[in-house]
């Protein structure tokens, strides 16, 4: 019984008016405590109150709390009077509505009151007996039940309505007078009902939680402040490997090692003292070994906030812990690996490319600390020239074309120095495929590159040295019969090389028999070479070359660990020259002995003869013995000695001298001429003059003969040419004459008389031409044979001109001739007619080749003791090509003017002959279009001529 119920009971005893009431109260108190269920209590209360109230209705409602809704669990006491029926008819709605409906009263909600009277208890009354019920409700009840007064009391537990009692009556006096006892009964009933409710509630709740706990896969247990297990579930029992009963009542120290138990108790104690949740993690010994659990300790407080128990729940974290441990170990391992890796490893952000991490090696290679790198990207440390390449690769990587790349590139270290590194870059993508982390591994190969370069250079140098060696060199690998190296000179010399030893044997020694012999010999020497520290000469080999020739080589072999260095010394030429020398000596001896040339060797200093070949002995008429006692001065005439000595001293300075046609003396004193070629040579340690004598006496004669023959041939050729020309020149006018005559002879044509005369005249002209031609030819012939007889007499120039004056004026009828003779011209010893012929011919030419009325100027005067006559015109002149041939026979310039008397082509040639026969010269100056000037000279016969030949018989 609660406090309120007790105080109500005391009040009731003080106010009791009759024993009956007291008896009822006592009975109620005894009886009510014996009841077990809330409905029994409700029924009992209804029965007791009904007895007190007498008339009217008494009802009790009980609410179902567990449903958390205000559903009516039971209504007792109203069943018999139709209240329920009426109420049921009227509701049928959600119980939750009841409350709202009561506050907002409508007839439809009337039932709410009847079943939901508890709502009247708003305001938190525990038990409240009142009658100031809303008027409207009362009116409704009055109409329905014919009652006027409603008394209601509610049961509230922990602020929640759990039930209520309503008394509806038309006679309130019965209620008022028994108010104390009614209150007492109601209070007792409320107390009991609440207790029953609570107990039931707890029972249900406990049942629920117990199942939860028992079935939980995680250990759940409760402990008291001493560390004693007060409750454990099956999971904990399994964890400990004990039964539940074996655990309850025992302490931490019964299951854990002392240190662990102390540690756990400390947390538990803390929870008890502070009321705060605690978490502890640690090993738990179990049947399958130790497992790890994390345990949450939740302190439980009573009403006074005092902790009286702790609920603990544990979670097995063994797997997680192991996994974490494994992860930790693995991470540490990886970290250690990366940090100690011999290559530089760095990571960079996939988006902004900034470095995230860098291991020690990376930092060392690049020269930046990891911290410094974090604010940089690879672009800052890449050599500018290599940047685009890196970017291209990175772009390919990001686009997914490649999954990683490897690049040799240059980096700029912090200190500015360059390094060469190989970088391998890969990309980690996030789950969405976006670049997340770039991993770069770099390997500094600067040193390696340098070494490689050095090695390469050194190898190249070595190769160059070997290649530049004039001796072919090969490197034979003894292990695998490969030939690792051939110097360039080998290829040059042999024209082929082979990469294996057998291959080389086949190439170099194509004859199988010789090859076998070579291999045998080779093997013998190899043993020798192996034992020797130096190169061993393995003898001579005849090596076949690509071009089919054979080279004789000495092969030197030396060992270099498992290689054989073979050097080929080409002695082909040496061998050949040895052979040649032998042959040569023989040959020269023969040459010397048998030579047709005289060979005479004299000491360059003493001039004494040392050797002479038979030819020179014959030439000079001395025996060898005689000559070796003589010297150079004995074999040349006195007047040549000086020249010979000069030649000797010249030879001391040079290697060779040559004297042509040097006179020499025979033993018999006769003279001959020789071409002597002197060569300087050292014989028996002395400088000698080796003289080669060629007797040119015979050759001179032969040469003279040859010249004669050539001259004769020339003459003969000139003669036949002349003959052909003469023939042509004669036939041409003859052909015309014959043609004209035959024209007239032919009878099929009747020519007019004029025509006939014309033909005859033409024939006549041609006949005259033929006459002239024959005359000129005769003259020419005489000139050639030197038979032109000059009728030379002493004439004055004037006399010559006088003799031809008539002809000249006839020739120059159509021209302006001018003759200028210088006065006091000395007499000349000439053939007047011939000289006149020359002048006439030249004037004729001038007239022929100059236009009518043109001037022809003839001048004559003395110059340097000669008569100089010139005939100048202002005619058509001649080109230089014509001038050269002008005086040749039968040469006629083609510009012969038609209709004029044609020349014979011999005129100028005859002029030239005549002038030259007089010892003079003839020439021409001419310019095309400007005219020509022919000149000739005749030497004056001087005093001698003048004295020998007195002045001409003619007049002066």
């Amino acid at each position, binding site marked *: 019984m609660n406090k309120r119920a007790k105080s109500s009971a005391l009040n009731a005893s003080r106010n009791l008016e009759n024993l009956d009431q007291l008896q009822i109260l006592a009975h109620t108190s005894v009886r009510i405590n014996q009841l077990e269920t809330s409905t029994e209590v409700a029924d009992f209360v209804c029965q007791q109150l009904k007895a007190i109230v007498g008339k009217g209705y008494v009802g009790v409602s009980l609410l179902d709390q567990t449903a958390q809704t205000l559903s009516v669990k039971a209504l007792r006491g109203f069943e018999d009077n139709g209240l329920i029926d009426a109420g049921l008819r009227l509701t049928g709605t959600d119980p939750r509505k009841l409350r709202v409906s009561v506050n907002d009263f409508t007839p439809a909600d009337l039932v709410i009151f009847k079943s939901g009277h508890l709502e009247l208890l708003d305001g938190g009354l525990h038990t409240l007996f009142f009658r100031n019920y809303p008027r409207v409700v009362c009116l409704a009840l009055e109409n329905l039940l014919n009652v006027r007064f409603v008394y209601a009391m509610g049961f509230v537990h922990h602020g929640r309505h759990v039930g209520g009692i309503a008394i509806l009556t038309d006679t309130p006096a019965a209620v008022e007078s028994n108010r104390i006892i009614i209150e007492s009964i109601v209070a007792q009933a409320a107390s009991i009902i609440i207790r029953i409710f609570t107990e039931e509630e707890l029972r249900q709740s406990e049942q629920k939680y117990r199942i939860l706990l028992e079935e939980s896969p995680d250990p759940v247990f409760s402990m008291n402040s001493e560390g004693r297990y007060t409750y454990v579930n099956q999971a904990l029992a399994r964890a400990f490997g004990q039964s539940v009963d074996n655990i309850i009542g025992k302490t931490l120290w019964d299951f854990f090692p002392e240190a662990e138990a102390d540690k756990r108790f400390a947390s538990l104690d803390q929870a008890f003292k502070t009321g705060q949740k605690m978490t502890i993690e640690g090993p738990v010994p179990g049947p399958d070994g130790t497992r790890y659990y994390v345990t949450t300790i939740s302190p439980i407080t009573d009403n006074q906030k005092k902790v009286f128990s702790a609920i603990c729940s544990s979670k097995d974290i063994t797997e997680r812990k192991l996994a974490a441990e494994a992860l930790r170990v693995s991470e540490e391992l990886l970290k250690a690996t990366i940090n100690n890796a011999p290559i530089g490893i760095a990571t960079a952000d996939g988006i902004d490319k900034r470095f995230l991490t860098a291991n020690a090696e990376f930092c060392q290679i690049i020269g930046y600390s990891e911290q410094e790198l974090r604010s940089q990207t690879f672009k800052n440390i890449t050599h500018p020239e290599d940047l685009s390449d890196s970017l291209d690769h990175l772009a390919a990587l990001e686009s997914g074309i490649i999954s990683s790349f490897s690049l040799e590139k240059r980096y700029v270290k912090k200190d500015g120095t360059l390094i060469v590194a190989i970088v391998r870059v890969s990309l980690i993508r996030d789950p969405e495929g976006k670049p997340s982390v770039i991993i770069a591994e770099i390997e500094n190969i600067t040193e390696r590159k340098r070494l490689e370069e050095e090695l390469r250079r050194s190898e190249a140098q070595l190769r160059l040295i070997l290649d530049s060696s004039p001796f072919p060199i090969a490197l034979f690998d003894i292990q695998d019969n490969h030939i690792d190296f051939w110097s360039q000179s080998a290829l040059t010399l042999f024209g082929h090389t082979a990469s294996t030893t057998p291959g080389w044997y086949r190439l170099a020694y194509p004859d199988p028999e010789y090859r076998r012999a070579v291999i045998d010999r080779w093997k013998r020497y190899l043993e020798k070479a192996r034992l020797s520290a130096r190169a061993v000469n393995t003898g001579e080999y005849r090596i076949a070359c690509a071009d089919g020739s054979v080279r004789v080589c000495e092969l030197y072999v030396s060992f270099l660990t498992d290689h054989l260095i073979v050097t080929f010394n080409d002695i082909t030429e040496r061998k050949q020259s040895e052979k040649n020398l032998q042959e040569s000596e023989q040959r020269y001896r023969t040459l010397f002995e048998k030579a047709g040339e005289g060979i005479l060797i004299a000491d360059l200093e003493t001039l004494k003869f040392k050797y002479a070949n038979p030819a020179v002995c014959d030439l000079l008429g001395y025996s060898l013995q005689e000559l070796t006692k003589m010297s150079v001065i004995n074999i040349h005439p006195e007047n040549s000695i000086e020249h010979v000595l000069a030649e000797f001293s010249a030879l001391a300075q040079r290697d060779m001298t040559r004297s042509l046609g040097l006179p020499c003396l025979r033993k018999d004193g006769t003279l001959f001429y020789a071409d002597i070629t002197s060569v300087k040579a050292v014989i028996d340690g002395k400088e000698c003059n080796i003289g080669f004598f060629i007797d040119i006496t015979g050759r001179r004669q032969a040469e003279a003969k040859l010249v004669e023959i050539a001259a004769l041939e020339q003459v003969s050729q000139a003669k036949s040419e002349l003959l052909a020309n003469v023939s042509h020149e004669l036939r041409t006018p003859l052909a015309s004459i014959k*043609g004209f005559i035959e024209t007239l002879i032919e009878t099929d044509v009747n020519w007019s008389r004029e025509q006939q005369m014309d033909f005859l005249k033409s024939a006549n002209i041609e006949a005259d031409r033929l006459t002239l031609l024959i005359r000129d030819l005769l003259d020419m012939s005489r000139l050639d044979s030197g038979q032109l007889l000059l009728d030379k007499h002493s004439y004055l120039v004037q006399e010559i001109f006088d003799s031809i004056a008539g002809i000249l004026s006839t020739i120059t009828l159509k021209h302006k001739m001018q003759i200028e003779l210088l006065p006091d011209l000395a007499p000349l010893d000439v053939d007047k007619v011939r000289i006149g012929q020359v002048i006439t011919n030249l004037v004729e030419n001038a007239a022929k080749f100059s236009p009518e009325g043109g001037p022809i100027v003839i001048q004559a005067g003395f110059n340097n003791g000669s008569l100089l006559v010139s005939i100048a015109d202002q005619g058509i002149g001649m080109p230089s090509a014509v001038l050269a041939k002008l005086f040749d026979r039968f040469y006629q310039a083609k510009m012969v003017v038609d209709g004029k008397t044609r020349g014979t082509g011999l005129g100028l040639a005859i002029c030239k002959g005549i002038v030259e026969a007089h010892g003079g010269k003839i020439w021409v100056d001419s310019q095309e279009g400007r005219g020509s000037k022919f000149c000739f000279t005749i030497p004056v016969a001087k005093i001698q001529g003048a004295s020998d030949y007195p002045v001409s018989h003619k007049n002066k």
Partner: protein
Amino acid sequence: MKSPLILVVDDDPSILKFIQPNLEARGYQVLTAANGEEAIILTQKEKPDLILLDIMMPEMDGFEACRRIRKGFDTPIIMLSAREGENDQEKCRVCGANDYLTKPFVLRELLNMVKSRL
């Protein structure tokens, strides 16, 4: 019918002087030239039906003229020569001439030769 055109080439005007009237009197048209170059030009221009060509001419001789004419024309060519060289006849054949007459020649022979070639 048009009378045949004959080109007579000789550097000696007296030869032309009797050949021309003789040919004309026998119904031929006659053109004359004094050297090889002139002959070639006239041949190209007038396309004669026959050519009488002297061998010995200054500048370009008859052989050369004949060779050049033969490059474009198959006009009958009768060579005239005052030389009695042993190989002239052969040379004439080689350079494409059809006949050969040695000066001095019988007029009737020339006329017959011309007639037969036309």
